[in-house]
């Protein structure tokens, strides 16, 4: 884990209201794995850091993808190149690509696209056949940067690709990795109890001390999205008890 001041070095738009920000953070870029996140501090700005999945990591650079949903994300999208953030990471447990799988299906709803470029990279490195199913409410909200051996798009309004939700659009696979609104992930859990899902909670610290990021477990009790998570085996989570009023749900599939 590293704590570093990272300058903004690039931003580009990848969908309506959806932007990728690139920061120079060498140690994090060199060590981050798919599904892990960074906790970004803004000063002046909100007190607490804001957690973001790492979208891409190339050379000295990490990228995150976001929409403005509140004060912190609005400040980040208002940043100019050279402006600094405090970057803590990589944090949390990554997707597990070890094992005997020969093909993988990546399923992303809206901003759930966030961890998938790294997942595709790591999956190819493990020489898996990659199918990426990406969904959004409508065509203009689909992320422009999907990749893989096979890409399947889905929109709720049918304005592009499959008309319907990503879970219905997705084929079966040896390995299923999903990220998106908690409601969507609950549907994933229904169809693929062994899928690996990256969930979201509010976070106080991101480092395991505050117990603010409680994830209700199917077996009872809670553990910490920032430490044991954010990646879980879908069937391990008590989906009814997991709050689903976070912005991803507001914002997509």
């Amino acid at each position, binding site marked *: *884990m590293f*704590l570093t001041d990272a300058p903004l070095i690039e931003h580009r738009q990848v969908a309506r209201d959806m932007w990728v920000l690139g920061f120079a953070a060498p140690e994090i870029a060199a060590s981050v794995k798919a599904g892990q996140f960074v906790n970004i*501090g803004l000063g002046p700005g*909100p*007190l*607490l*850091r804001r957690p973001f999945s790492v979208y891409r990591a190339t050379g000295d650079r990490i990228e995150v993808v976001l929409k403005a949903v509140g004060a912190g994300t609005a400040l980040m999208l208002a940043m100019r190149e050279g402006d600094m953030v*405090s970057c*803590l990471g990589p944090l949390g447990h990554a997707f597990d690509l070890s094992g005997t799988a020969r093909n993988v299906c990546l399923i992303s709803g809206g901003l759930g696209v966030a961890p998938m470029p790294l997942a595709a990279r790591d999956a190819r490195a493990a020489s898996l056949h990659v199918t990426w199913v990406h969904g959004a409410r409508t065509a203009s909200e689909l992320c422009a940067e999907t990749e893989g051996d096979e890409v399947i798009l889905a929109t709720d309004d049918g304005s592009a690709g499959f008309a319907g939700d990503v879970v219905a659009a997705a084929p079966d696979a040896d390995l299923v990795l999903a990220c998106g609104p908690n409601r969507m992930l609950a549907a994933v859990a229904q169809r693929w109890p062994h899928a690996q899902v990256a969930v979201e*909670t*509010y*976070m*106080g*610290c*991101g*480092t*395991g*001390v*505050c*117990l*603010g*990021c*409680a*994830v*209700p477990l199917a077996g*009872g*009790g*809670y553990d910490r999205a920032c*430490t044991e998570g954010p990646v879980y085996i879908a069937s391990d989570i008590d989906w009814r*008890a*997991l*709050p689903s*009023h976070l912005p991803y749900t*507001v914002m997509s599939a």
Partner: protein
Amino acid sequence: MTPDLSVKVGGLALRGPVLAASGTFGYGTEVPLLERRALAGMVSKGIFLKPRAGTAPPRIAETPSGMLNAIGLQGPGVDALISDYAPKWAAWDFPVLVNINGESASEYGELTARLDGVPGVAGFEINISCPNVEQGGMYFGNDTRAAAAVTEAVRRRTRLPVWVKLTPMVSDMGVIARAVEAAGADALSAVNTFVGMSMDLNAYRPRLSFRTGGLSGPAIRPLAVHLAHQAARAVDIPVIGVGGIMRAEDALEFLVAGCRAVQVGTATFVNPNAIAEVHDGIAAFMAAKGFASLADLPRFLPRD
């Protein structure tokens, strides 16, 4: 010359004035990236006799310069604490106090008895003020008699240092402070979080599933400095200031207000190395002012 930052607080000799506050440092095994040389001591996450699952999420909500939390004292219970954590603490070069919680004076006493003499346990901080558990601390914290009874129950069970963590939700801090001092406390930690609430305008209900939460962070600092100052003026035992300390200047406000030491909480969430930076900043301030030790720092403790 580098100033001497060591302090004696309620039966403990500390290498510095900056401790980790309960519930913001886990059991001392979690916080990464902290330069521990600067850590004078640590208060464990609050513990009960039995394991507790804690409250349902959402457990935290950010507010201006602060955060609300309703963790519900999630914890493994005293047995796991003794087997999994105390042995580690015994090997560390700073003291660990256990933040103890209960729903009756006798439960506090029983918990103390279980922990007294366990290697690694250097003392106790009685949480009579955790606002997050309906039947819990809150009740004791603003009832003079109950606060004194709990303090006695713990005092009777141990010779180790006993600190009492005061609640801010009282109408007269001095009265409670004097009562727990008379009941045998060695020091007072002032203060715990303030009860607050924030509404979710989509759901038309509180953002926290528990409805209310404890407010911490810089927002509460001026309130905490005042309450710690009131406590320091009311008692002869040392007071440890807690509340909204992010930087050395903030800690110095509590010290000037009459506190012997401070605890840093929420700041650690934002900056894992906050405790070391506060410690080093205090040293730099003392050096700049030419103070050889914290005894030289002027305190504002007027008679009137």
